[in-house]
């Protein structure tokens, strides 16, 4: 062992805290080592100084205070003692329940239930909404069809305009629109009907209906409009119908020019 290691024993040696074996070893070393003896002297000075501090005697008041505190404490302890027993028993009985696992189970179940309920309700709702949509659509159609029979031209116009709002248009509507286009006494209604049908021109039924209606029109405005629509849609099948139209007597000169132009452009 080195001096540094022995030095660590010095405070303990001075305070009598060393074991016998260590004590002897250190004392032997001290006999042969001046440096450690000096260190011991310094250590002893420090420790003796601390040990030499006089212990103050506490005032008598302290003991009195303590008695007062102890009595208070005993008094305070006695009162809740009776209820304490009851409470602690209650607490213990509660603590013995497997309440946490149970609570977790319940929570998970509850969440699961909520999710299932939510999902099922969602899909049900969607179904209901779809049904409702279909019903509204049907209602609109029937209403429109009924309105087309209205004697007031403005009402019939409204009905035709309704078709623009419809997302899907079925056979009944197209037939009704074509009938309106061919037979309606009001030019304006027929014009809007033509516009509405032009929007539906993707439907082959609409196309053939439009071609057939070329010869049935007698109003120059509608004839011009149909020629425009056909040109725009590039319906080649309409050429023969236009040629027939040219043969009609009393055809408006403007219309005649327009139809000729249309035929040449379509060819």
């Amino acid at each position: 062992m080195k001096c540094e290691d022995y030095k660590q024993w010095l405070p303990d040696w001075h305070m009598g805290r060393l074991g016998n074996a260590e004590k002897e070893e250190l004392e032997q070393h001290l006999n042969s080592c001046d440096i450690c003896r000096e260190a011991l002297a310094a250590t002893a000075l420090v420790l003796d100084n601390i040990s030499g501090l006089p212990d103050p005697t506490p005032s008598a008041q302290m003991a009195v205070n303590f008695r007062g505190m102890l009595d208070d404490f005993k008094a305070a302890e006695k009162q809740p003692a009776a209820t304490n027993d009851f409470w602690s028993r209650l607490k213990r009985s509660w603590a013995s329940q497997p309440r946490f696992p149970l609570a977790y189970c319940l929570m998970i179940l509850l969440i699961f239930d909520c999710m299932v309920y939510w999902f099922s309700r969602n899909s049900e709702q969607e179904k209901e909404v779809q049904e409702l949509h279909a019903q509204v659509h049907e209602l609109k159609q029937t209403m429109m069809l009924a309105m087309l029979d209205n004697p007031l031209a403005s009402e019939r116009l409204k009905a035709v305009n309704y078709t623009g709002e419809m997302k899907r248009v079925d056979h009944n509507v197209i037939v009704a629109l074509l009938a309106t286009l061919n037979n309606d006494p009001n030019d304006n209604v027929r014009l809007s009907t033509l516009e509405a049908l032009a929007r539906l021109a993707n439907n082959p039924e609409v196309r053939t209906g439009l071609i057939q209606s070329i010869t049935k029109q007698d109003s120059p405005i509608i004839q011009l409009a149909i020629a425009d629509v056909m040109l725009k849609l590039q319906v080649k099948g309409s050429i023969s119908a236009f040629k027939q139209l040219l043969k009609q007597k009393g055809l408006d000169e403007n219309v005649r020019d327009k139809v000729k132009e249309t035929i040449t452009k379509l060819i």
Partner: protein
Amino acid sequence: MLLVKAGDVERMGLLFERHHRALFAFLFHLTQRREASEDMVQTVFYRMLKYRNSFAEGSNFSGWMYHIARNVLKDQKFGSDGKYDPISAHEERISGGALADEELEKTQSHQQLYKAMELLSSDDREILILNRMKELKYSEISMIMGITEGAARIRVFRAVEELKKIFIKKGIKSGNE
């Protein structure tokens, strides 16, 4: 203490008789404040009563007591600023308690020693004060400080070394004349 824990609170009186002087001295040496130390002794005994259930069977009463005392000391630490204030301690020493104590009055070297010890860390100061009590074994000191026995021995050594240096710096040769 086990009897106290079992409900015989009256027995605490006996423990107070036996230990309060040493505890008071411990607190006084660390604070040099008489009234504050007396209050803290009271607090320590109150806490021991209140938390008597935390006293483990087979453990040492003194060790437990000083352990609580250290916590009380930490909680108080004099003043709202949370720091030990040597100046106000010194004022109290001059104006009040210390002057009434004849033993303290007779020598200035004690004041010198206290001042020197104020330069140590609070842990070092505490372990030196604990170390001077011969009735405390290392096992108890280590328990009070919350460290291992070996660490306690080394800390005592280091604290002594620190204090040696301070002594040399301040030119303190001998304290007790």
